[in-house]
């Protein structure tokens, strides 16, 4: 019997695990190969807080996207959504590791030493210590809701990352530079669907419009600035989310126009208006986050001494 030996791969050096995956490498070390010098004169606590918010946004959004797995409307969409989730998960891992590096005090007390920082922060923090915006928290609704949320999220995140690629923190700058093309694709993907659904059938138009209406109350918070962000901006490591408002409004209105959707109102926040109030960024979350974490953290917490 002449068999081809597919098992040769098993005897090869397992250290090269990354390079043979079809989609996605970089599973090994969240910060490998990146210059992680901490710039002088930076308020580390504030810098870490800022990075943590960006990390948690990506982590929770990736988690919600991964819930779509085996439920997508077509197989191409299974692949696309998993890919977007993988990109965000990759961003989250690097940023979590950086946050803990900048401020080791973020690492929850009592987590065994063998647990990497990224996992200590993801699996052993309580909901109130998460710093993500509330937009990413809601359980997944229908595909119209997904498209609306992904469009809003990626438009906002792209604007943030774009500005962060000039950060004085070399890790943040590197992660942002790598993430910009990824999130640009996420935004295009969501915008493409918004147009197909908005300008598709009556039903799809209604569903995507409803999705947009559902996420809209959570949009204002995206432009709220925290004290940590203000300090990070002053130190040259961070970005003020308020500066992304105009770009966000412009992109959304153009997509809605093509999608024949009425853009939900965006106020211009002139000089006289009260500034947007941070919620998730200061630990105020919806109950959905607690449920999400209870599930996500269940195995890791059941085996704190476990090796994975």
């Amino acid at each position: 019997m002449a068999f081809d030996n597919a098992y040769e791969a098993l005897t090869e050096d397992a250290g090269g695990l990354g390079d043979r995956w079809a989609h996605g490498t970089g599973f090994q070390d969240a910060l490998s190969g990146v210059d992680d010098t901490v710039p002088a004169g930076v308020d580390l606590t504030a810098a870490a807080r800022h990075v943590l918010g960006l990390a948690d946004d990506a982590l929770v959004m990736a988690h919600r996207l991964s819930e779509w797995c085996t439920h997508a409307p077509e197989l191409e969409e299974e692949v696309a959504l998993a890919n977007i989730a993988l990109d965000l998960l990759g961003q989250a891992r690097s940023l979590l590791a950086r946050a803990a590096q900048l401020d080791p005090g973020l690492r929850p007390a009592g987590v065994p030493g063998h647990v990497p920082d990224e996992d200590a922060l993801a699996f052993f923090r309580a909901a109130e210590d998460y710093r993500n915006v509330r937009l990413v928290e809601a359980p997944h609704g229908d595909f119209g809701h997904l498209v609306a949320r992904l469009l809003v999220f990626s438009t906002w995140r792209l604007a943030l990352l774009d500005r962060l690629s000039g950060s004085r923190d070399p890790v943040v700058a590197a992660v942002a530079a790598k993430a910009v093309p990824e999130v640009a694709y996420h935004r295009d993907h969501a915008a493409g669907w918004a147009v197909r659904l908005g300008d598709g059938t009556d039903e799809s138009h209604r569903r995507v419009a409803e999705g947009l209406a559902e996420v809209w109350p959570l949009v204002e918070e995206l432009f709220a600035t925290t004290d940590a962000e203000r300090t990070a901006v002053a130190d040259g490591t961070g970005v003020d989310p308020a500066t992304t408002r105009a770009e966000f409004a412009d992109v959304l209105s153009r997509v809605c126009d093509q999608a024949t959707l009425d853009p939900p109102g965006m106020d211009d926040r002139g000089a006289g208006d009260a500034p947007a109030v941070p919620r998730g960024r200061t630990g105020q979350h919806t109950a959905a986050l607690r449920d999400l974490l209870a599930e996500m953290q269940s195995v890791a917490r059941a085996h704190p001494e476990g090796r994975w």
Partner: protein
Amino acid sequence: MPSAEEVMTVTDRRTGHGPDGARRPPEATLADETEAQARFERLIAEDQRIEPRDWMPEAYRATLIRQVAQHAHSEIIGMQPEGAWLTRAPSLRRKAILLAKVQDEAGHGLYLYSACETLGADRADLTEKLVTGRQKYSSIFNYPTLSFADVGVIGWLVDGAAICNQVPLCRSSYGPYARAMIRICKEESFHQRQGYELLMTMMGGTEEQRAQVRDAVDRWWWPSLMMFGPPDAESPNTARSMAWRIKRHTNDELRQRFVDITVPQAEALGVSLPDPDLRWNAERGHYDHGPIDWDELSRVIRGDGPCNAERIATRRAAHRDGEWVRRAASAHAAKRAARDAVGAGVAG
């Protein structure tokens, strides 16, 4: 990581071929057909590839459609048992690996449905057959995943058995299937490796983790052996499929190969396989194993496995829930085409 766009370009091949694209023209004469058949047989005998536009016997086409569709369905249904652990993966690295693996399986399903379409099948129709139970998928996916160790054992044993089955198919006589298999096998060998690596890591963890690994191995071992299908004596179509070179080894040969490779891996891992009769037979140069419960296999294939109903229900729900989305996409494409046509008319 390749950009999502790259991934999409690779997999976005929905168009396929027209339902009758590969069939012989109706005006072909008897002499033409005899000549075409002689050519088909020569190609097979010379171990050459049959391509979509070549003449092929209807039974060859039908057998292949059934085989490739069943394989595609298995990739897609196979996403479920492991996908169930995506939201609970205990480290972010494992979450990323698992997500990438499950995504690969969706990609495999896509390649295989495309290969099937080159034979004149239609993806929507095949999906309909799957969700209504008229076409099968691998019975292995009808077992539940009870702990995170199952993710590792599926990678090691289930992807491992799939590799044994599939590597010879890289030399299948049908070109598009063979080419899809080459690509799939590369990814599968990686799936197996990540599973084995997870188990190795867990075995170095706590006693509780080791117990989970042992329990998962106990549950998945026999179903993995059943993945190779009924024994040769009860596999009536094997001879014809081997003559057509769409199957290259018998079920029992492949099963033996899998056992021989896996036993030393289990030893290295430090787990015992749940078969008291498993031992090296120096005379044969192979491991002997105990009798397989074929009644269980037929029960599960018939639909009485622990998760048959759930697997189909999940797939059916995704397909039905996605109908309005797919309809919207075609409605939008039609509107665009109409607008473009008007635009072109004005410009012209």
